[in-house]
């Protein structure tokens, strides 16, 4: 019996809105690899390997049985036995040939994949190089040109007039409306790739503007890969705080709800659905006599995109700081919630999060402060987070969602990476902001994960399932769930609500 969760039917209570029922195939990069291949292809390779192993094992058994007695050498043996002996010999030979052929096919397919991985790496390197050169040129030539134009009174007057028209005539609203009416502009893998390369090339632009020679820029860029996020984030926060926005504060985790009992989640979709709304964290503690305590930490997404001081810890500053590898207020507040819930460094912890919650989850799993055994993130820009080896779970992103691309390229390969296009070319894209980033778009991807064919994906789903289910199924087990609001605490400024 197939024990995987069945996808919800169109009339099921948790069925997805029609707009999110399309999408593409699941693509997977296994641990240690950066090449994304389809789930179906991985499953095919796994079937070839299973065939090789099964045929090899049966051939050994049959060859052993055939080799017990050479009936032909024994006088007076019935003809049927002699015939059976010959048939067993032949069957063993054929089975060995099948095993060898399946192994050769499996190996050939994997060599082809390795070649594809090298090709993909070369393409990515080429794109990165082109993007670095483009950004450097823009910095070296574009920035001085812009300064020259901006100091020209005629150009300056034109810019001011254009800006005034845009603002006074509802131009900004019309621009926003235009983007909403054309959601395919930002919902395309090409645009997402552009964003990823732009993020990666920010330092090249900076070095170009400062007059660093191009060859030196490229060498420096290779050796400081990943640093552009930290430096870019720091620059934005520095500039913001100078104008009174993007300010930092103390944090607090306020308990808002607690329940005595909850069933363990089963499958990626149930885990994603368990992640709370923005600005909250849910902590589930699983205990059973004689077993180490296990804790699941579900971190919600961004609460407010405001750059002004508010009560929300999961705000824009935390987004920028999190992507830049800093210690954002959201992460600090989740740590406070975990401590309040009694989580210790010895407890086994599974971290889960969506969007900014995914950044927090990945940061805590990578921190070394907790006994992290699992991590499952959705829509999170965590490409630069250096994770420990051996974590169960996966990083899930829609390839047409630009938010994960803001974290730059995926550098860490210690966690299974799963991608899926939320909207394929024939699908209707709903006119909402960043459609592929919506939780419903990720619910559809989680459903596809629960239906995955490859063992690579199914094993990780099973490991994540087992974490809570193993404890919850024991005699005397208790499960408690608490939810906290993640807040900022201001000493010197009026609180701005959420």
């Amino acid at each position, binding site marked *: 019996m197939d024990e995987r969760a069945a996808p919800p039917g169109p009339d099921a209570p948790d069925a997805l809105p029609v707009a999110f029922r399309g999408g593409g*195939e699941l693509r997977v990069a296994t641990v240690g690899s950066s090449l994304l*291949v*389809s789930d*179906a*292809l991985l*499953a*095919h390779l796994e*079937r070839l390997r299973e*065939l090789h192993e*099964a*045929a090899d*094992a*049966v051939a050994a*058994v*049959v060859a*052993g*049985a*055939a080799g*017990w*007695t050479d*009936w032909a050498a*024994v006088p*007076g*043996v*019935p003809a*049927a*036995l002699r*015939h*059976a002996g010959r*048939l*067993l010999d*032949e*069957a063993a030979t*054929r*089975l060995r*040939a*099948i095993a060898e*052929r*399946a192994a050769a*096919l499996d190996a050939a*397919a994997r060599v*082809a994949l390795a070649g594809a991985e090298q090709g993909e790496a070369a393409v990515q390197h080429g794109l990165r190089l082109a993007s670095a050169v483009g950004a450097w040129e823009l910095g070296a030539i574009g920035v001085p040109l812009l300064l020259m134009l901006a100091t020209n009174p005629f150009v300056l007057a034109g810019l001011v007039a254009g800006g005034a028209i845009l603002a006074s005539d509802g131009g900004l609203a019309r621009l926003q409306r235009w983007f909403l009416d054309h959601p395919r502009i930002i919902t395309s893998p090409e645009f997402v790739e552009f964003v990823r390369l732009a993020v990666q090339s920010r330092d090249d632009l900076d070095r170009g503007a400062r007059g660093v020679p191009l060859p030196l820029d490229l060498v420096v860029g290779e050796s400081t890969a990943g640093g552009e996020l930290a430096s870019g984030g720091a620059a934005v926060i520095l500039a913001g705080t100078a104008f009174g926005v993007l300010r930092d504060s103390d944090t607090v985790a306020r308990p808002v709800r607690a329940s005595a009992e909850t069933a363990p989640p089963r499958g990626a979709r149930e885990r994603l659905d368990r992640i709370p709304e923005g600005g909250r964290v849910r902590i589930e503690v699983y205990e059973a006599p004689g077993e180490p305590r296990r804790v699941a930490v579900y971190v919600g997404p961004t609460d407010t995109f405001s750059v002004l001081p508010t009560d929300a810890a999961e705000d824009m500053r935390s987004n920028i700081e999190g992507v830049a590898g800093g210690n954002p207020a959201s992460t600090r507040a989740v740590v406070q919630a975990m401590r309040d819930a009694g989580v210790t460094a010895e407890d086994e912890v599974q971290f889960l999060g969506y969007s900014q919650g995914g950044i927090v989850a990945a940061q805590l799993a990578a921190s070394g402060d907790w006994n992290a055994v699992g991590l499952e993130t959705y829509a999170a820009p965590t490409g630069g987070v250096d994770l420990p080896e051996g974590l169960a779970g996966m990083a899930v992103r829609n390839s047409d969602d630009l938010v994960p691309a803001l974290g730059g390229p995926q550098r860490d390969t210690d966690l299974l990476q799963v991608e899926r296009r939320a909207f394929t070319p024939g699908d209707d894209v709903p006119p909402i902001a960043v459609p592929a980033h919506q939780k419903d778009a990720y619910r559809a991807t989680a459903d596809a994960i629960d239906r995955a064919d490859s063992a690579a994906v199914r094993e990780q789903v099973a490991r994540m399932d087992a974490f809570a289910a193993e404890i919850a199924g024991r005699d005397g087990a208790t499960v408690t769930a608490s939810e906290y609001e993640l807040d900022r605490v201001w000493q010197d400024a009026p609180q701005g609500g959420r």
Partner: protein
Amino acid sequence: MPLADLSRALAEQQLSTIEPALSRVDALVSRPVVVPEDAWRGAGATALAAAELDLAARIREARDLLGQARASLRAALATPDG
């Protein structure tokens, strides 16, 4: 031990060994032959599909040989001097 008894004992052991082997090969015969064409694309998918069909045919042949061997062993055991 008389030769007839020895050969019968060995034949029974062979039969009991190849029965589970035959079940495993039966399972391989019913293995779905699926080549994800979208993933492999073009000539790669065609070549893999041909190789998969060839493997499936070879597995059926091996299953038939094992089936015949089992029938021969049963026939030998069914005869009074087997």
